[in-house]
């Protein structure tokens, strides 16, 4: 009799337990879905982060590239300014002394050497000094075609650049850095020798070679155009 009265209660407890277990199972299922969604979200976020990192690296590389190109353009501007200044100074006067001073200033201030000699051609196989700076002028008063590296440049109308030549200067030419024949077409107008570079110069830069090219032709024409007039026939 007692069992009969307890039956509904037991059934209720059993039903409540089933309901509770079911609710737990539903909750587990819901949480599993949430975990799955979160995993997808995390994966998406990781992928987005990866894409962002890649984009950032690309932007950084682009920025570095722009900075390098900016520096190159600035350097090129500076080089062009050098060439413009050199050309302007050489052709800005018809006074011989100022032409020679301009050549000296270009070598000192734009190339960076305080040891130089400028010669004018005296016939085909001799050079006669017309200007110098930072060297013993008497020592370099004239050069003949058989005198060392400079004489070789005179004989062959070729340029000498240290570290680009197999010939090694020696004796009083030991510090020779460059020897530039000044040529008007095939005609030798003169020669420039540059000895030791300034201590802050690591060596010759690309623009220095451009300046050598400019000096080779423009200094030649500037010197030629300002050469002293030959004595007139019959003049005393």
């Amino acid at each position, binding site marked *: 009799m007692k069992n009969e009265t307890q039956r509904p209660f037991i059934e209720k407890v059993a039903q409540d337990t089933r309901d509770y277990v079911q609710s737990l199972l539903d909750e587990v299922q819901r949480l599993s879905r949430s975990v799955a969604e979160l995993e997808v979200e995390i994966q998406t976020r990781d992928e987005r982060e990866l894409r962002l990192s890649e984009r950032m690296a690309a932007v950084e590389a682009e920025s570095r590239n722009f900075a390098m190109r900016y520096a190159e353009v600035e350097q090129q501007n500076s080089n062009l300014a050098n060439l413009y200044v050199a050309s302007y100074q050489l052709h800005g006067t018809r006074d011989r002394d100022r032409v020679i001073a301009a050549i000296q200033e270009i070598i*000192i*201030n734009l190339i960076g050497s305080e040891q130089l000699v400028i010669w004018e051609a005296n016939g085909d196989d001799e050079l006669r000094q017309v200007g110098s700076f930072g060297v013993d002028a008497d020592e370099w008063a004239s050069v003949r075609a058989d005198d060392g590296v400079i004489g070789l440049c005179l004989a062959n109308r070729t340029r000498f650049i240290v570290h680009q030549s197999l010939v090694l200067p020696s004796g009083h030419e030991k510090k020779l850095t460059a020897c530039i024949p000044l040529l008007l077409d095939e005609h030798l107008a003169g020669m420039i020798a540059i000895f030791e570079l300034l201590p*802050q110069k690591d060596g010759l830069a690309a623009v220095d070679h451009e300046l050598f090219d400019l000096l080779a032709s423009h200094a030649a024409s500037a010197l030629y155009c300002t050469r002293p007039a030959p004595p007139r026939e019959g003049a005393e």
Partner: protein
Amino acid sequence: MKKKVLLVDDSNTVLLMEKMILAKGPFEIIVAHDGIEGIEKAKSEQPDVILLDVVMPRLDGLSACAVLRSDAATAHIPIVMVTTRAEEANIETAFRNGCTDYVTKPINAVELLAKLINILEANAAVAP
């Protein structure tokens, strides 16, 4: 607003080069050809910065620098020495005579502009 820069050099090549470099920036250029003219122009023009060559006729750059520093009218003006001689002793003398900074020849355009801009910005920051 343009900043006044006084260029003091006896070499027309250097002056032209400096003018071309500074043409890129907001600068008004004033020129002097030796130390004495440089001091006179510094007093009369009151530039924001002076680019001063070392080797010049009449009065060299190092002496001109010392004179500018000792004169109340010019003592505040930053001075950048432009030198071919970058040896330590020369640089020490330049700083002892009161220069703010120095650049060596051949002038590097990027370096010169960067130094000038730094000096002018630093001066603007401390100005009342």
